[in-house]
């Protein structure tokens, strides 16, 4: 990361209600250090966009305070916050050319004409659209419009850029390409980016840290790998990546580990994440790629599974099986050339390490 010239953002006990009856954002506390790429991830209605709009100044906070570089900004109107923003549908002004769009924030800041032109050209070059200045937004492709929107949000050198699902309208391939471009721009400029998305892949690809929202509360705030490896609750485990669920009851606790008995009596060892005592109900979470078919005696958990379905996916094979009464148990087998002898209907032993199996809060 280059020398940081980004802004620090802090939410302090922020609450938001639209109707005075229910809270959309419940007591949000969040610290974003300068230069960080933070993603707010969550399903629709989880409160992530509202948090972004409060930061941009388009929605007032019902309670609490938001700080920008330690300055409270609740009473600062949006146009004085100096925050760049990229909107879901780009919001490029259709009656202005690309260059006029980019010059707009500079004009309202009454910048000298020559300086404006120079900055506009530099911003266009940055997004590799140097020769498109005279076009209208409608004459550009979706990806090009997206780049213009990014360039416009950055052209006036803001310390903070907000992005509200900016890649939602693009096709898959273009989206992946843009993810890298945005990430590189962020790395080069060092601005703070707050990014809102409901796409977990996007969040994991781009972010320094991800705040997973659900029901108006941040469920977990971690780096992408922590989020995947160490989900703090069942919601995060299920929302991020693929996940097998096994319901049971804690029957023994031993430090960081615990023993869980499933409904059919199978006993499994698991990493104790958020269960506290014997007798607690729990849902075990296990990533499909951590399931081993080459079992051996030292393994923490070994159970019997019946193969229900095989799906060939090139680099790996998805195996759907029934394990401990759960017929939606998924295992991924890496495709290593030597074909595995897996047949639908077979009973095979499978196993996994204690640390890959998280004992989380029970799901419903």
């Amino acid at each position, binding site marked *: 990361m280059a020398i940081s010239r980004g802004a620090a953002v802090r939410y302090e006990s922020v609450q938001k209600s639209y109707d005075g009856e229910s809270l959309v954002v419940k007591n949000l506390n969040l610290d974003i250090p300068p230069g960080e790429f933070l993603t707010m991830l969550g399903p629709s209605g989880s409160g992530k966009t509202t948090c972004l709009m409060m930061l941009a*100044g388009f929605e007032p906070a019902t309670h609490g305070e938001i700080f920008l570089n330690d300055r409270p900004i609740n009473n600062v109107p949006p*146009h004085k916050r100096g925050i760049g923003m990229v*909107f879901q549908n780009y*919001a490029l*002004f259709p*009656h202005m050319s690309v260059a006029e769009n980019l010059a*707009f*924030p500079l004009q*309202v800041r009454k910048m000298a004409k020559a300086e404006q032109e120079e900055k506009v050209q530099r911003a266009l070059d940055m997004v590799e659209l140097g020769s498109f200045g005279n076009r209208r937004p409608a004459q550009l492709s979706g990806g090009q419009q997206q780049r213009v929107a990014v360039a416009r949000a950055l052209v006036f050198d803001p310390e903070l850029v907000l992005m509200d699902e900016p890649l939602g309208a693009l096709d898959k391939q273009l989206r992946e390409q843009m993810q890298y471009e945005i990430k590189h721009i962020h790395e080069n400029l060092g601005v703070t980016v707050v990014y809102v998305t409901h796409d977990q892949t996007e969040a994991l690809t781009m972010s320094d840290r991800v705040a997973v929202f659900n029901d108006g509360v941040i469920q977990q705030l971690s780096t992408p790998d922590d989020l995947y490896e160490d989900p703090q609750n069942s919601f995060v485990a299920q929302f991020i990546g693929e996940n097998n669920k096994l319901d049971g009851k804690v029957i023994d606790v031993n430090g960081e580990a615990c023993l869980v008995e499933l409904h059919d009596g199978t006993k499994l060892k698991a990493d104790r994440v958020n269960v506290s005592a014997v007798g607690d109900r729990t849902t075990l979470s296990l990533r499909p790629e951590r399931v081993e078919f080459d079992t051996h005696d030292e393994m923490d958990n070994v159970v019997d599974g019946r193969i229900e379905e095989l799906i060939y996916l090139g680099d790996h094979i998805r195996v759907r099986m029934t394990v401990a009464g759960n017929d939606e148990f998924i295992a991924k087998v890496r495709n290593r050339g030597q074909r595995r002898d897996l047949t639908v209907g077979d009973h095979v032993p499978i196993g996994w390490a204690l640390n890959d199996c998280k004992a989380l809060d029970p799901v419903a």
Partner: protein
Amino acid sequence: MSDATAGQVLTTQDGKPLKASLARALRREKLRALVLIAPLLLFVVLTFVAPIVDMLFRSVENGIVADTLPKTVVALQTWDPRSGEAPDEQVFAALYDDLAIAVEAKTHTRLGSRLNYEQTGISSLFRKTGRRINRMDEAGPFKDQFLNADKKWGEVETWQVLKQYSPRYTDGYFLSAVDAQRTIDGISLKPENEQIYLFLFGRTLFLSIVITISCLLLGYPIAFLLAHLPLRTSNLLMILVLLPFWTSLLVRTSAWKVLLQQQGVINDFLVWINLISDANRLVMINNQTGTIIAMTHILLPFMILPLYSVMKTISPSYVRAAKSLGATDWTAFWRVYFPQSVPGIGAGAVLVFILAIGYYITPELVGGTSGIFISNRIAFHISSSLNWGLAAALGTMLLVAVLVLFMVYDRIVGIDNVKLG
């Protein structure tokens, strides 16, 4: 298309030119489309286009003189209108022949009414002469007999008018419509105390523009509000906007009378709060103010609806984007929102202006003398004076004026920049 280079014609598999095959394939679709719209097309042509064309044709049509007095028209060809003398016996003999037939068919009075538009007194001249014609001596000489019947037959002006309007087509109606007339000395403006149409055209344009502007000023904020309120509230407001459509035009106009007249509600209130004295009650009706107020009210929905439908499509994220880029509320509105609402303004303004320019009931009822439009004169000539030729000429000019303004508008704003919904 590289195949088509060097003048090579693309063909289909069976060797026919590709373009011809395509045209044939499309022709069937076009025919089907035509069949689908045929009933409407026929309806519009029969009930709308044809009467309008017929009406426009009346503005130049003038066959009545040649049809009623065919021999006289021929005989008059040799008469010099500058001679200062009435024509000779030969013309009067032709007039006798023509009139004898015309009186039989009772068409002479109709010709009299027609020529009376051009010269006062000809109506009674033909009526009076018609009654005498059967008592005239068939052997002649006729000149003295006609002069006996009415001395106007001896006046050179009578014959000048007859000769001038003997061609089957005339520009007389159009000249009248621009306050001009054709005399034997050429085209000249009518005396000042008869000039009215150009003045009325000017006033119609001026008042229509004022009405359009006041509709825009009043309608824009309302449309803005409608487009940005929650659907439930905006639907309720929309009903209020459309409410005037559900009451009869006459009821609405009468309601304005009750409100605006000198002993009316508004004046009573202003006197009651001592803002004006009882002796100085405001004159707000039976003048231009009344026309502008009542017509603005009537035409307001035609401004609001297109504005609303355009504003509804302007995403709120544009204004937000502008603000996030550092624009104040006003700059965001003026530089970003307003330009995007221009198609709505264009559509609303064109609608209101065109409706206003042709209105006549409301100006007639509340316009007094200073608030009436050219359409009031057109209505008068259609229903009261029966001078349909002049009415048609005035209508044609109004139509042309609207088309010209439309073209100017297209040149300045662009007709593709109009969105009706």
